[in-house]
Structure formats: structure tokens, C-alpha cells
């Protein structure tokens, strides 16, 4: 499966954020979307996720557009936006379980704990999320992403509020995912300093 974008245009607040955008991401590739604040990074990512409809252009997943095969596409993609998608009153374990069930996946308690342990959150596994810091919540959300193991990851500013060590750890996970023929799209205004990849495409918006 290839993610293919053709002649995409996004119109917001009386002007075009971008026009005639063409690119494709194939298995094992990472796409980095860069640009200043307000240049349309998040909007582009939302379009790719199918959350919003572009002014013009099409997004293909394989041979068909993502809007035609929405259920199938949603099944092969995980999206992490600005907001974590974590309920404040639920524990990390419960949150991850919710996300897994919503994605039609089996829930292994052990596996979830393992992954939480890998980011030093095992002690917090059974406390409500409002006790966690911003960065810790972000980590939980990324854990959910890792457990889900969907081929395509769409990540909006995944590194905000994370410490250096976690960023390093996360980027190792990215490389692992790419080796298993996964695809990653990242919107970020910082460069990926730890990753040294041949198969990286960069788009600069604005």
C-alpha cells in the first residue's frame, strides 16, 4: 500500500495554505512535514487522516481514495494529533484498552504493561491520567500507537513536551517500525536529529 497525494490544496481564512501538493509515501519511508506555525502542517495531517476535506485534490491509499474506503483506511492508520486522546479520569491502561478496542484489536494486559514499562510509566499504570504530566500523557498516547501496530502512522508534533531520552527512545521505535515496512508521516517544526535515514522525504510548507 502506498499513500499517494495528488494536487492537494487547502484553503483557510481567505488564503491558500498550500496548493498543488504532490507526494507519495511507500512502505519503509518516513515523510517529515516542516514549516512555521500556521503554515498548514496540522491541516495537511488532518486531511491525510481523513478528518477534514481538502479544497482540491485527492489522497489515495493504494488504488482508491481514502474517502471511498474509509473503514479499511482507518483500520490501517493511527493518528496522533495535538491532543493526546486520553481521558483524564481514566488510567493509562484503561485509555490504551479503549483505543485498542476502538481499533478492532485484541487487548493483552501484559503487552500494554511491557510497553508502559519501556517508557518508565509502569508505576503510573493504574492511576488516573490527570496525575500525569503533559509529557507523560504524551508518552502514554505514543505507547497506544506502538501497541496498535498499524502500518501507517500520522503524528502531529510527536516530540512536544518529551525529554531528550524519550525522544531518542521514540526515534529508535520509528526506525524499527520503518524496518518492518511501516510508513510514518510526521509534522514537526524541529528536525529529527537522532534519525539518520536514507529513506526520508522532507516537505517544507509555507
Amino acid at each position: 500500500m502506498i499513500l499517494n497525494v495528488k494536487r492537494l490544496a487547502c484553503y483557510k481564512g481567505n488564503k491558500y495554505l498550500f496548493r498543488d501538493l504532490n507526494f507519495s509515501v511507500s512502505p519503509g519511508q518516513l515523510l517529515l512535514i516542516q514549516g512555521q506555525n500556521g503554515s498548514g502542517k496540522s491541516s495537511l495531517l488532518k486531511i491525510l487522516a481523513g478528518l477534514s476535506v481538502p479544497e482540491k485534490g485527492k489522497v489515495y491509499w493504494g488504488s482508491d481514495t481514502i474517502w471511498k474506503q474509509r473503514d479499511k483506511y482507518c483500520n490501517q492508520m493511527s493518528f496522533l494529533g495535538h491532543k493526546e486522546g486520553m481521558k483524564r479520569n481514566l488510567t493509562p491502561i484503561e485509555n490504551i484498552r479503549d483505543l485498542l478496542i476502538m481499533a478492532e484489536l485484541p487487548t493483552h494486559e501484559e503487552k500494554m504493561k511491557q510497553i508502559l514499562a519501556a517508557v518508565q510509566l509502569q508505576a503510573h499504570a493504574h492511576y488516573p491520567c490527570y496525575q500525569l504530566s503533559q509529557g507523560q500523557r504524551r508518552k502514554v498516547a505514543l505507547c497506544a500507537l506502538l501497541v496498535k501496530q498499524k502500518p501507517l502512522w500520522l503524528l502531529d508534533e510527536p516530540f512536544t513536551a518529551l525529554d531528550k531520552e524519550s525522544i531518542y527512545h521514540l526515534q529508535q521505535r520509528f526506525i524499527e517500525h520503518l524496518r518492518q515496512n511501516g510508513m510514518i508521516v510526521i509534522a514537526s517544526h524541529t528536525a529529527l536529529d537522532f534519525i539518520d535515514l536514507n529513506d526520508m522525504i522532507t516537505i517544507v510548507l509555507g
Partner: protein
Amino acid sequence: MLKVFCRCFFSDLYVVFRSTREWLSPVLFFMIFVALFGIGLGFDGQQLIQISPMIIWVAFLLTSLFTTESIFRADLEEGILEQLALSPYPLWWLLLAKSFAFWIASSLPLMLLMPFVGIMMQLPVKEIILLVVTLFLGSPAITMVGVLGATLTITLPRSGIFLGILLLPLYVPILILGQSAIINLFSQTLPLFQIALLGAISLLCITLIPHAAAAALKTAMNE
């Protein structure tokens, strides 16, 4: 399909019942509202019996109006709605589960209180039973209408009183039917017609509104 419904439902219930303030404050509001009327009219027992069903109905509607604003507020801030919209399951199904949970959390406590409130307001047993029955049949419609209002105003920062203007027209038929059911009982006839109609409206709301709300929510995500 059913599994995801249950998951969505229970996790919403956990969220509400874990924070006492969230489910208790509407109940308290309801009690205060009714008690104020009771105190104000307390010396005239006959008059109280005449209008107390109306007071309880209005208190119920106002309480649900105040809770309506918060249905999706937290979910929007936490990004849950985006995840719901991206689930392979149809959004209306998930919304139905959420609405059901919201109904349990907001309407059920009030209905359980009804016997006590009814005694406080000097209602005879028969009327209390009828009040609970009509509320039970009407409240799903009230909740669903609230869900629709909440999705329509989801992008507004403070929807408060404006939501009232939107929801008032939609509350009116339910209020009228509930009210007329009780007035019928005063004249010693069993108001089966109103009860059936209330049930029908609730069914209509349960089947149609999740679709409308899902469409509205998807558009709101677009922004």
C-alpha cells in the same frame, strides 16, 4: 460492534462516576430548584399538588439543559472525539453509546430521587409513579436532543444560554406531553395516549439524532 458499544459506554460511565462533582452537582441543582418552589408555596398544600408535577418537569429540563454543555466539552479538549471519528466503526454508533452513558449519568439519578421529591411535594403515590414513567419515557428524547445541541454548538467557546434558545423548541413537545399526561390523571383517566406518544418521540430521537449528530461532528472536525 457490541463490544465497542459496551467499551465506549462503560468508559464514559467510569469517567463520570469517578469524579463525584460531575454527577452530583446536577442532582443538587435539581433538589435546590424543587426545594425553593416547595418552600415558596409550602403553606398552600392544594396548590402545591396542582403545580408540583410541572415544577418537577421544568426542574428536570433545566437540569439537563445545564448539563448539556458538558457532554462533549471534555472529549473535545482531550482529543477523544478525533479518535472516535477515526475509528473504523460508524461514528453514530459510538455516539449512541456515549449518549446512553450520559443518560445513565444525568437522568437516572434524578429519576431515582423522584419518590423522595414527590413526597416532599405532597404528591399522591399514583402520580409519583406516573411522573417516573413519563420521565423515564421522555428523558431519552431530552438527552438525545441535548446531544444534538451540544454537537451543533461544539465549536463555540461559551454556548451556555444560547444553547437554551436552540434547545427550547425541541424540549417543548416533551414538556407538553408529560404535563398533559399528569393533568389527565387528575381527571381520573389513564393517559395511555400521551405515554405512547412520549415513547414514540424518544424512539424517533434515538434512531435519528445519532446520525444527525455524527454528521455535525464530522463537519466540526473539519475545522
